[in-house]
Each structure stands twice: as C-alpha cells, then as structure tokens.
C-alpha cells in the first residue's frame, strides 16, 4: 500500500513539474497556436498598411522564364515570373514574391519563410501603362527601391497571321527586333486587356509565350493567377525611391548578389526595416547574381 501511495505521489509530482515548465501545453499547444495567430494577424496588418493605396490586378499570368546566361559553362537560369494585369497598368515581377507571401500566410508559425523561394527571386519590377506605352523598371534591394528607368517603350512589332493554341487560348505570332535579338511572341486576345513579360510590351493582347531566335531567352505560359482573399494580386508602385544615385545601382546589386548571409548580417542592413512588407527575406538578387557571358541585351 505504501509503495502504491509513493508511486502515485511521484507520478503527480512529475506531472505537476511538467505542467509548471510548460503551462502553455496544457491545452495541446494553445499558447503556441495563439502566438502563430498573432503573427499572422500582424502580417496581415502590415500587408494592409503597405498595400493601402495599391491597385489590385484583375488576374495574373504566370511564366517559366529560362535563360542561357553562360555559354562557356552551358548554364541556364530559371525563374517563375508573372504579369499582373489591370486595364490601365500591368506589373511584371517574380512569382516567388507572391509565393513567399502565400507561404507565410499558410505557415504563420514558421520563421523565415521558405528560403528556396526567395533564393531564385529577382526583385525587379516592370510597370507598364498601355495607354501611354510608358515602361518603368524598378528594383528592390532589402527596403531600398531603385527606379532604374522610366521610358516610352516604342516596340515596333510585326504581327503575322500565323496562329497556334497555347493552353486553351488562340494565339497569334508577332516578331520584334530589340536589344540585338529577334524576338517572337505569341499573344492572345481571348484574355482581357494587355500584358507581356519583361520589356516585350506593346502588343494588342496578352503574350503567353516569347523567345529570341536563338532560343536563349524564353518565357513559357505556366497558368493563370487569380486574386485570393488572403493574398491579393497587388500592383504597388513604390511610394518613394532610394536617395542613392541610380548610377551606383550596378555596384550595389553586384555586392549584394555576391555577398553571403553572414556578410549581410554583419553589415546590419537586414535589420534596417522592421516588419515583413515589402517581402522581407534575404536580398536574393536572382539573375543579377549570375556570371553572365550572354547578356539578354547584346
């Protein structure tokens, strides 16, 4: 009897000790869940504040971008890009930014996001205004927004009668001489408004596929994107641009591209801005981190 009482007393003591050390686990991790919910709420709050004056796209087109950037070593770069489309403006950017946001929303209790997404991100943005043919290229390094160019696009496309089907959409062929390459684009009018990857703008429809004559630079259609209540397709033109002269941009992007995480952490530049928006992950510079011997613009 004495042994049973002793055993019971010991069991109770151990249980109480365990409870004292992890009081939040009593309801199956309720405190942990609460913290995750708080983080998610904060994330949404930050997003709402950051995107307060942003437009929302009607829909988006997702592309797989392939680029034979180094002929000497036979290396190809790939990245998921997307074009977000409204009648008056389109935005071409990395899809990984959106994927990262959606990943965070679906995994609010995880830290740091999915690094494999940000790893391939090129934080370049092309804002295109079809009515005026204006194309603005911006680039984000951590929280610094650089305006790289603001020009009239002026692409002189030669539209042919050749047609083919991409997915469910009827497309027409168009060609263009630009940047020392001969480009072929397949665009459709089955989808509303206008949209095109990169600087291949100006066609009267939505480009679903584009490549140069040597098949070294290629955008292939990879599906449509729709607004989701928790993760809208925002078209956010930067509120302000960096005061750093844009002439310094090539050096900055190269330094950030080649430096590793330890370098960036030691410089304290990762903690320049609190919060998560605009997307706060390591400043992967995607295409700019490459040792390019075959530039897109020859």
């Amino acid at each position, binding site marked *: 009897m004495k042994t049973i009482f002793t055993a019971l007393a010991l069991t109770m003591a151990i249980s109480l000790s365990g409870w004292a050390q992890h009081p939040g686990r009593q309801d199956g991790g309720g405190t942990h869940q609460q913290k995750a919910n708080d983080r998610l709420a904060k994330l949404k709050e930050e997003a709402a504040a950051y995107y307060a004056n942003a437009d929302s796209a009607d829909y988006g087109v997702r592309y797989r971008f392939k680029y034979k*950037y180094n002929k000497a070593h036979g*290396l190809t770069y790939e990245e998921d890009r997307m074009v977000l489309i409204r009648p008056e403006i389109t935005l071409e950017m990395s899809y990984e930014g959106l994927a990262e946001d959606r990943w965070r929303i679906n995994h609010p209790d995880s830290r740091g996001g999915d690094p494999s997404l940000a790893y391939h991100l090129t934080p370049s943005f092309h804002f295109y205004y079809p009515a005026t043919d204006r194309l603005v290229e911006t680039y984000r390094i951590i929280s610094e927004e650089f305006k790289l160019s603001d020009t009239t696009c002026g692409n002189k496309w030669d539209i042919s009668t050749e047609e083919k089907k991409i997915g469910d959409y009827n497309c027409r062929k168009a060609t263009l001489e630009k940047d020392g390459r001969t480009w072929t684009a397949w665009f459709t009018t089955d989808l509303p408004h206008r949209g095109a990857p990169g600087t291949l703008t100006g066609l009267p429809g939505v480009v679903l596929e584009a490549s140069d004559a040597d098949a070294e630079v290629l955008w292939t259609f990879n599906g449509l994107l729709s607004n989701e209540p928790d993760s809208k397709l925002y078209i956010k033109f930067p509120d302000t641009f960096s005061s750093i002269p844009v002439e*310094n941009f090539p*050096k900055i992007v190269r*330094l950030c591209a*080649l*430096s590793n995480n330890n*370098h960036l952490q030691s410089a304290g530049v990762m903690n320049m801005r609190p919060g998560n928006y605009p997307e706060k992950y390591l400043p992967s510079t995607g295409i700019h981190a490459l*040792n390019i011997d075959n530039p897109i613009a020859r």
Partner: protein
Amino acid sequence: MLFKRHCLTLAAMTLMFMTAGVFSARADYNANYYDYATMVGNVTAKLRTYLKAHPGHTTDSLRTSVLPTLSDGPVGKASDLTSPRKKKLTPAKLYEMARRSSLIFGRMEYNESFKTDSAYKTASAVALTSDGICATNYHVVADVVLSGALGRTDKNDLARFLMDCDGNVFPVTGILAVDPLNDWAIIKVDPCGQKLTPAPVGGDVPVGTPVYCLASPSQAHFHFTDGMVSNLTRTTNKRTGHTTYILEITSDYAVGASGGPIFDECGNLVALVSSTISIYAQPEQYRNFQMAYKQTVPVFLFKEYFK
C-alpha cells in the same frame, strides 16, 4: 661584532649585485619579447589624436566613399608590388622579415553605455605597397562595404585601422577593390608619414610547398606557424556560374587571423588566411571533432589587380 657587521654588508652587496644582474638579464630578454597587448591598448589614444586632426577619416567617411572608390579594374601597377624573393630563408629569418609586413586589423568605436571610445583588434592584414595599399579578407570589411553601399551610417563606429609590429597605427581611408566570393579586399591606409614594409608578392605554389602563417588569431598577436599547401581547389557554382579558388594549407590559425599573410619559404606572400573548416564524425551534433583544414585565398586573385 665587527665581523658580523662585515658579513651583513657583504651579504647585502651580494644580493644587490645579484638582483641587478637578474634585472639586467631581464632587460636583455625584453628586447626579444613583445608587449603587443600594450601596443594595441595604446591605439585608442593614437587614433583619438589622429581623428581630431583628420575628422574626415572616420568609418562613416569610409562608408560614404565605398562606391566611388571601389574599382572593378586595376588599383595599382604591377611595379608597385615588391618582386618575389628567390632565396629560401630559415624560419627564424623569415619570421623577422615577414613580421614587418604582417598587420593587425582593428576598429575603434564609441560605447554609449560607458561613454568612452576604445580600439580593439578584429582581424589581420598584410602590406602590399609602402604607401599604404594592403590586403585583407572581404569578410573583414564587408560590414563597411555593404552598409556604405546602402547609404547607412553609424556615428559610434569611429575608425578602422591597421597596426604594425612596432605599434604604428595606420587608419583605413579607402576600400579599393573587393571580391566577396573569393574573400579578399584591397584597402588603403594613411601611412601617417611612414613607409609600410610591403611583402614580396609570390605566385602559384603547388601542393606540398612549405608555407608559414604570420597572423594575429585572437590574443596571439603576430603568431607564426608552419605547414604546407595541402590542396588547391576550384569550384564553379552551377546556379550562378561563378568560380571560387581555394588554397588549402595545414599551417595553423584561428579566428582573428582573417586576412593575415601566408608566406612561402622565401618569404613571398602566396595567400591570405580566409577560413577554417572543421570536420566532425557526427556533424549534425558537432561531436567527435576529427580535423580542421584551413582555406586561404591564393595571391593570384588580387595580384591581377596590379597591372
């Protein structure tokens, strides 16, 4: 009584002579033993004076000038570098010569809590020219380069400096070229009216070549170790296409030696200290340490910047 007094006097005199002899002998030895810790301790006062006279040579001015001064091309002429020696030296002779080219890298900052400034050692470096061009690791100056490139400042970060084995202090005034992937940086210091002792710059060294490291790991200032070249490796990143070159050695060094020089038997600079890689039998738990090998930056990478 008189005899006793004489004895006491004799004993006292003997003791005096013996003590004087000991101190005299110690004074002789002192010439061969260096009080580097005091030298580093004196840097604060020297830099304080320097910064008063040169208020434009702070770390923030270094940051501001990073992008304008950073070069993708040559930073000097090949003739600016000291030609390699051909005669092999004894380790003792090599140490004496190389010690003058090896430098301590440090920073001085203002501590808000203690309301005082202080200079301390963080890494190592080596002199390449007598007028103040030196080499170290990129990771030693990366914080200045990146924060400067992105327009950040830190008023409490007062200065970066080099110090030679005699305690002379040379404030860093520019970062001339960097290679983040291969971990080297060429920097410029104010020689403050003196001439630095540049290391003769060697070339390729095959595996098996005896080498010496003369750097300043942790508190072991100007520490001299020997070894040999144990491997030469080249890696091209399949995603980015960039190639990194590593010269592995067995010569010992540790944290604080970053950027310090590696010499061949003739006293020629053949590499810079970069990092150590530790190998564990159970790497997931960092248990059962087995060996550490040393990765250095081969000299040809930054020698190319002198044409």
